[in-house]
Every structure is written in C-alpha cells, then in structure tokens.
C-alpha cells in the first residue's frame, strides 16, 4: 500500500562558523497511512530536525540541503507533492491542514498572551472558510474531545492558567482542529510526569482511532515507542539505521545499535543484580562522522576492513529494512 509520507535521502545541515554539522544526513523513512510511526534514537541523532524539516520549519543556521519529502494524495495514482520543492504558498496550505505538529514544551509552544481559543480559531479560519462562531464551536468541540473539562469556559483561558498536561491536551486539540492526515508529535510527553504521559499517549491513540490520521512520534523513550507505535524507525547520527514493524524491531532487532539500545532499557521483573548494559563508547563529535558505517566504532559486531570502509545500504531482512553489513549478502 502507498505510504502517506515518504522521506527520501533528507539532508539538513547546520552551517556553523567552525564547520558544518550534518545533523540529518540521508534520512529515509516512510509513514504509513493511519498508523503510528515512532522515530527513536539518542539525543542529537537528528530526529527532531528530521521532524521539523518535513514542514520546512528549520531555522538558520540549519538548512535543508537535499532530499525529498513526498506527501501522497488520498487518491491512488496521483503524483505526490514534494514539500521541499513546493512553493511557499502551497507549503503553507499543507501546514496544519494536512500535517500538524505538537511540540515538546506546551508552555513554550503556545503563545501565553493569546487565549487558547484564539489560537485554535486562528488555525481553523486560516485553512477553512468558516465564520468566527463556527470556528469557535469547533475549538470548544476539540477541547472537549481531548478531555479538557468545562471547555466552554476553558476556550477563553490563557495557557498559563492550565496545568502542564492540560496545556499539552490543548496543543493537541489545536493540532487536530483542521483534521490533518498526519500528526507529527515531537517528544510530546517528555516534559510531563509519567502519569500524565500515559494519559496523553492513550489520548493520542484514541484520537487516531477516531480521526484515522497517521502519527509520527519522535521519542527517545523505547517504552513509549513500544506502547503506541505500529512501526519503528531507529536513527543514529543523522541516519535511519532500521525501520520495521514495532513488534519485530523491538523484540528481534536486526541492527547492532538497536540491539544495544533495547538491551539498555530496564525491564520489569529483571533481577536486581543484573547490570544494565549501556551502549558502548560515546557519540562521536559532531564535526567528524566515522567512515563506512557510522556506528562501527561502537559496534559489537565490528568487522575490520569492511565496516569502516563500506557504507551500508538498506536491505530488507524478514520484515525489517536495515542498513548494516551483517545483512544483505545472502538476502540481496
């Protein structure tokens, strides 16, 4: 089946005074329709920059230097729209109407001097030809839908009058107010406590059932990914090293990096004496990417003369796409 969104060889670089940081360097992934894709990886692996690059929201000194972001139409067979090549006006139409975003800090990503209603109504009226009252009714309906009590009153509240969890709910209400086909949630629960986090994740899943939208969830938390994702894409140093069904990737990971990540997560029922295994080594400095496979200096399955020379290409192994030289020769 045709995906909803396909990112091909996306490259976003930070052009700094003392060099170029290739934060995103050849990311390819696809978001299936109506499902949830979790993009996981350590801090600094480029997952947030990838998310922002999709809607061209990166700011100086970051610059998208290459690749394609293809948004497919609902009608099969129609040419997809390349968001990176689209005109500004066309892109603004796609923003929020087709692809909406929820950010990490609800307090910082909502304007504190405008009411929540004002900010939702603005989005609705920007993309749909509706009157003020109809847009306001929509805002109240959405606030009600995301579980904000007393939405008729809350619509006139300012974000600082709500708790953190409620703020993120309001942000989600705003994101869904134009019925987007894709919701990009960039660490939506990182700033919240664990109980609230679980509630927000449940809410996202309910809303996905109801609205049938796809979700691209950016998270560093494998537990969160396991809870909600249908598909998982694992990123390392600006690349996707592995993408596949969540159950397969998280229980039988192919890439040595994913294996190491999964091993480093504590499990319920794990014996107390067992030490958690951290991923060996440290993330290399941003200006120097290792040659060959970027993970080779930290890899347990390092093959000298091969991994440090050859750049691995993506191959399919079982249901998983993986970029590792351990795979492929026989399956290719």
């Amino acid at each position: 089946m045709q995906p909803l969104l396909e990112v091909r060889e996306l490259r976003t670089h930070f052009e700094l005074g003392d060099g170029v940081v290739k934060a995103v360097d050849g990311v390819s992934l696809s978001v299936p329709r109506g499902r949830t894709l979790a993009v996981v990886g350590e801090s600094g692996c480029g997952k947030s920059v990838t998310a922002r690059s999709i809607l061209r929201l990166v700011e100086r000194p970051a610059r998208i230097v290459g690749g394609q972001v293809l948004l497919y139409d609902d009608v099969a067979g129609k040419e997809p729209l390349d968001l990176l090549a689209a005109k500004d006006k066309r892109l603004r139409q796609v923003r929020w109407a087709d692809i909406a975003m929820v950010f990490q800090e609800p307090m910082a990503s909502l304007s504190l001097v405008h009411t929540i209603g004002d900010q939702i109504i603005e989005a609705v009226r920007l993309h749909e030809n509706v009157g003020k009252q109809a847009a306001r009714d929509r805002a109240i309906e959405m606030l009600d839908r995301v579980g904000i009590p007393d939405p008729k009153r809350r619509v006139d509240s300012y974000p600082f009058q709500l708790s953190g969890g409620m703020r993120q709910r309001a942000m989600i209400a705003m994101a869904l107010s134009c019925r987007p086909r894709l919701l990009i949630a960039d660490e939506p629960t990182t700033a919240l406590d664990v109980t609230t986090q679980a509630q927000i994740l449940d809410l996202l899943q309910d809303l996905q059932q109801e609205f049938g939208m796809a979700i691209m969830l950016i998270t560093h938390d494998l537990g969160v990914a396991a809870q909600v994702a249908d598909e998982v894409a694992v990123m390392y140093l600006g690349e996707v090293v592995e993408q596949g069904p969540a159950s397969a990737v998280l229980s039988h990971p192919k890439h040595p990096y994913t294996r190491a990540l999964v091993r480093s997560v504590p499990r319920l029922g794990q014996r107390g004496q067992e030490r958690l295994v951290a991923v060996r080594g440290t993330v290399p400095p941003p200006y120097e990417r290792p040659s060959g496979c970027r993970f080779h200096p930290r890899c347990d399955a390092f093959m000298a003369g091969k991994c440090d020379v050859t750049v691995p290409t993506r191959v399919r192994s079982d249901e998983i796409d993986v970029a590792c030289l351990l795979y492929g020769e026989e399956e290719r």
Partner: protein
Amino acid sequence: MLRFVARRLVWMVITLAAISFVTFVVIKLPPGDYTTTVIANAEARGQDIPDSQIAELKRHYGLDKPFLVQYFTWIKGVVLHGDLGQSFAWNQSVASLIGNRVLLSMVLSIASLLFVWAIAFPIGIYSALRQYSAGDYFASFLGFIGMAVPEFMLALVMMYVGFRYFGQSVGGLFSPEYADAAWNLGKLLDLISHLWVPIVVVGVAGTAGLIRITRANLLDELHKPYVATARAKGLPEWKLLLKYPVRMSLSPFFSTVGWLLPGLISGETIVSVVMSLPTSGPLLLGAVKSQDMYLVGSFVLILSTLTVIGTMLSDLALAWWDPRIRTRFQKG
C-alpha cells in the same frame, strides 16, 4: 481591578505627601533664602539694602516664620485652593507663570515622543527580523551615533544649518513677529515650522535608544517555540511575526512607558536653554539658582505627581497588554 486602582490611589497620595515635604526640606537646606539673592543682586548693582528693608522682605514673603508653618501654609494652599504660591523672582503666581510653558513643553515632548515611536519601532523590528543584514548594520550604526552625540551639540549644528542654508530664524518656537501675537492660524503654522528642529533634536537620542531596545527584545522572542508553532500552522511570515513575537517583545516597553510622563515637562531642559525655547525646563533651572522656593517646590511637586501617575498608568497599560499581569491583578 477597581480595588487595585483604589489601593494604588491611596498609596499615591501618601507618596506625594512625603515627596512634597522632603522637597521642601531640600529647598531649605542651602544656607540663605531668596533675600540672599536679592541682596547679592543689589550689591552687584552697587546698591546697599538696609536691614529694615530685608526684614520687611522676609516678612512679606513669610520667610521669617518657622519652617513647619511655611510648609503647611504652602501645602494647604495647594491642596485646598490649587494655589501653588507666589514666585518671588517673577512676582507672579506660580500657576500663571508655568501654565503656558508647561503647555508648550508638553506639545514639544508629545510631538517628539510620537516622532520617536514612529521611527524607532519599525526600524527596530526590521533590524531584528533582518539581523546582520546591511540594513541592520546601517540602523545600528545610526543608532550608536544618535546615542553618542549630545543633544546640545546636535541643536547647535541644526541651528547653524537652519540659519546658514535655509535662512530660518533660529531659536525659540516663534518668529519675532508672532512671539507676542495672539493665537491664530499664522502663529500655529509658525510654531509648526519651528517645532520640527527641537523635535528632531530631542527625539534623536530617544529614537536611537528605542531602536536598540526594540531590536534586542524582539531577538529574544524570535526563536521561541511558539513562533515555530505559528509557522507550522501555516500563517504567512509577516502576519505571524507581528501577531506573536512582536507583540511579546513590546511588554517591556509598556512597563516603562509611564516614566515618559514627567519627562514631558522637564526632559528637554538643555536643548531648550540652547535653543531658547519658552518651555518649562529653563524656568526650573533659573528658579533653582535663585532659590525661588515656591516655584521650585511646585515644579518638583508637579513632576513627582506625574511620575507617580505615570507609573500607575504604566501598570494599567501593562495589565491591559499582557494577560499574565492582568489575571494576577484580578486575583489580588
């Protein structure tokens, strides 16, 4: 809100009472009084004033009474009859003496204030949005020059240029033929044709300062997440910048706008002396020099009243502008 205003008004009255008393004390601190000036002037003319006449003068002006009696007589007149007392040097009531000048001062100050805002805000906003562009550097350059050149210097240069190249009668707010004429259209036009020079002179430093402040405030806001949210919503760039970060960046401005009020009648003293403008600044300077105590006292009282009112107006303006402040007022 009403309770807040009422409480502030009570505090204002107490503050003003304290200020008026302290002012009176300070005026009385230097040795001697107005008669000292009279004697000095007489001696300068080679005359000698007999002691009996000095005693007569003291009695006439009430300077022979105890300090507290002098103070309460004066303040009673101010509070009960709005009578600010007599100016010794001018032998006129203080009210009639400063009335006209205060009006002209306010015309000049308000005009230059509007000049400052009209120029500084657009340039400051432009400078921030196009940070490090040629236009930004140019604005910064002009800004630094504007702040560094003293006002009196600028006044002298402009008067020279006005006289030398445009044949304008320099100095004052009126041409000689209108100076003592009654108000009519000709006099008004004459005033306007003279007013622009002091407006520019008084306004340049303020403009330069406000450009820097606007630019810095806006740069602080430009990269906040809520701006990214607005962009993700698909708002056109200029619209979102004006609605969100520019609005946020003006809050500090509102919190200081009230301080401009006292400056309206005393801000341009040096320029007024240099350009011999019939405003209130030079009058105050002269009164302080000759220990014309009721004139000085009234001036300080008017200035401090304006300061206190200005601060309160500032707070109210800020509450009106920023809901975070407003909701706090409403609670307490």
